[in-house]
């Protein structure tokens, strides 16, 4: 059998890669996709712990995370479409319309 910490290490590696994408890339689309990767790496942890400690709450929490992710992506892409219509840029640094 695969020991539990392998899954946790996989979650850590994917989380760090996703955080690098969020912090380093300047393209809004890639930042959003990296957020998806972050949430997915957390899901791996939930399901691994739920499997190893025989508890269904891990899977249930993962289902809720997936649902909230779907809502987040819908709203974020709506904002992105509105942004692309008003301001022809995809870089996060140049989106400073609400800065006082």
């Amino acid at each position, binding site marked *: 059998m695969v020991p539990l910490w392998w899954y946790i290490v996989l979650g850590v590696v994917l989380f*760090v*890669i*996703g955080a*690098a994408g969020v912090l380093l890339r300047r393209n809004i689309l*890639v930042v*959003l996709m990296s957020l998806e990767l972050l949430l997915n790496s957390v899901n*791996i942890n939930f399901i691994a712990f739920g499997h190893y400690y025989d508890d269904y709450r891990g899977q*249930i929490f993962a289902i809720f995370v997936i649902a909230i992710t779907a809502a987040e992506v*819908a709203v974020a892409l709506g904002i992105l479409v509105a942004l692309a219509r008003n301001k022809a840029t995809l870089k996060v640094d140049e989106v400073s319309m609400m800065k006082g």
Partner: protein
Amino acid sequence: MDQGFFLLFASASVVTALTLVLARNPVHSALALMACFLQISAIFVLLEAPLLAVIQIFVYVGAIMVLFLFVIMMIDVREAVLQRFLPGSNLPVLVLLIVLGAEMLVLVLRSGRFSAAEPVTTRTGGEVRQLSTTLFADYLLPFEVASIILLAALVGAIVLARKEPA
């Protein structure tokens, strides 16, 4: 056997995740993320969560990534391909990421809490049935709240993406 499959899927998911972050073209990033989600759903199968694996493929690969590709198609990404990949002055970010990763790895590897080698198995088949019983009996209220959040996100996305009335 299990370990071999785990290493295969884990290395493939890490490689595709790196491709996601490093690719210049957002379309390549989206395709790499799709491949990464497929690997992660295979890992869910290894964790004996087949329902979650199917939901992962349906929701992420089927819905979310298609939405991403649709938006990429709507938006002109040629400018994004040409822009400089990594802007300067990101040394603090790199240090932060290395510290974060090293901290988590040290905590995981040095703790005895994560060393469980064998899962505690008391279940004997019918996992999806038990899972749905737990979901719809004990977690009914969060389930309904999640559906209301999805409805609100639906309405919000339509309002946000709509053209302003002239």
